[in-house]
């Protein structure tokens, strides 16, 4: 699962609850957005996460598969915080991984986003 929340299932539960409450008219557009995210999430979320773990495995040269994924993600975040990734090749690789992972998550949350 990606870090983006509510995840697809949680969003689906929320839109269902809103539909049940009878306020659908006021929230038609938002429900449409939520349903699209939910659908993309169920299709892509696993692959996005798997790709991220693969990047991290390569980066740390630890080919331990998905089971070690959470530990790798935590290590990566901690290393960034501690300043270990501030400089040189580590900084460049870290940045590239972050960009790739963020871009992939954007394909779920808002594929039309262009920024500047």
């Amino acid at each position: 699962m990606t870090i983006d929340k509510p995840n697809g299932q949680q969003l689906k539960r929320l839109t269902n609850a809103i539909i049940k409450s009878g306020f659908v008219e006021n929230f038609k557009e938002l429900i449409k957005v939520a349903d699209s995210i939910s659908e993309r999430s169920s299709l892509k979320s696993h692959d996005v996460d798997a790709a991220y773990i693969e990047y991290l495995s390569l980066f740390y040269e630890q080919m331990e598969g998905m089971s070690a994924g959470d530990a790798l993600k935590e290590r990566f975040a901690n290393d960034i915080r501690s300043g270990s990734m501030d400089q040189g090749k580590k900084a460049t690789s870290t940045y590239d991984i972050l960009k790739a992972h963020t871009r992939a998550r954007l394909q779920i949350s808002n594929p039309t986003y262009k920024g500047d």
Partner: protein
Amino acid sequence: MIFGPGTDATLDDPLLRKRLANFIVSAASANGCVINGVTRLAGGAIQENYALDLEISGGPFDGHLSTVLRTSAPTGVADSHDRMSEFTITRAAFDIGVLTPRPLWCCEDRSVIGKPFSIMLRAPGEARGDGLGYDAAIASSSATIAEQLGFQLAKIHTITPETHRFDCLTPPASPALISIAHYRAQLEQNDGDFAAIEWGLRWLERNSPAHTELVLLHRDYRIGNFLFDKGQLTAILDWEFADWGDPHEDIGWLCAQCWRVGNTQREVGGIADRAPFYKAYQDRSGREVDPSQVFYWEVYAHVRWAMIALQQADRYLVGGELNLDAALSGHRLAELETEILRMTPPESALI
């Protein structure tokens, strides 16, 4: 937008309205008060706002009074002030002539409407959180609006820890470093590893300002919190995040890409260019706007919005509030991280 447990449309309750009218009679030193109309206002991501039309008899407010009642949503975010604190800060700003609706009364007694609330005069104009870049009246007067925004912000920033004391605010030694520590602590409470936000926080730590002048910040100075009427700024709303801090923070928040609401070329909130805004601010404040510091606080703005987005999502996930708008904020994270990364390539530093 209100679905929270036990709070939906409570102002429709006749008994509650009677208690509210009694409170107003007492607070306004009046003989009587009739509440003629209550309308839920759009906007207010965290607070609820109701237009309240009053007929007051006797006392200094005798006659018709158009007001807004402001109260908390069922769930909120951690950094938002309570109603009394916000009321006190707003009154200080109003008293020095900031263009904000006149705060009238604040009530912390929960027996009146079930939760604390404040009442202010209703200012003319319209708030448009979805952006004003396409509004013809705004487009034709964007430079004037930029000047008004710069002038008003400079006025807010004349409030300092030397001129005012607020019980709810403590002047920080380093606003940036304190925020960074605060956000890291928040991330630790969250389920997940937010590596891109950590990257942004690390950049902010490495580039934190050596010296900060402390002033009162609005801390949510953006298009969604302004009222406009016929192409003119008429009011600055929502002081719930106000705090002491670096004046560049408010400038960075308004100019940050994430608040340009789809009109990215207009760098002041999606409606104007920077030059007239900076000039008006500098002329009124006598303080030089440092573009590198504004850039720093624009990076900060994206990190801060990301942290708020996480909290907004938790209003549903943890707080149980069936608020789709808030829940979807959680999915702004990837956009915000995209901007953080765009602004902070490896080994980038402020000049």
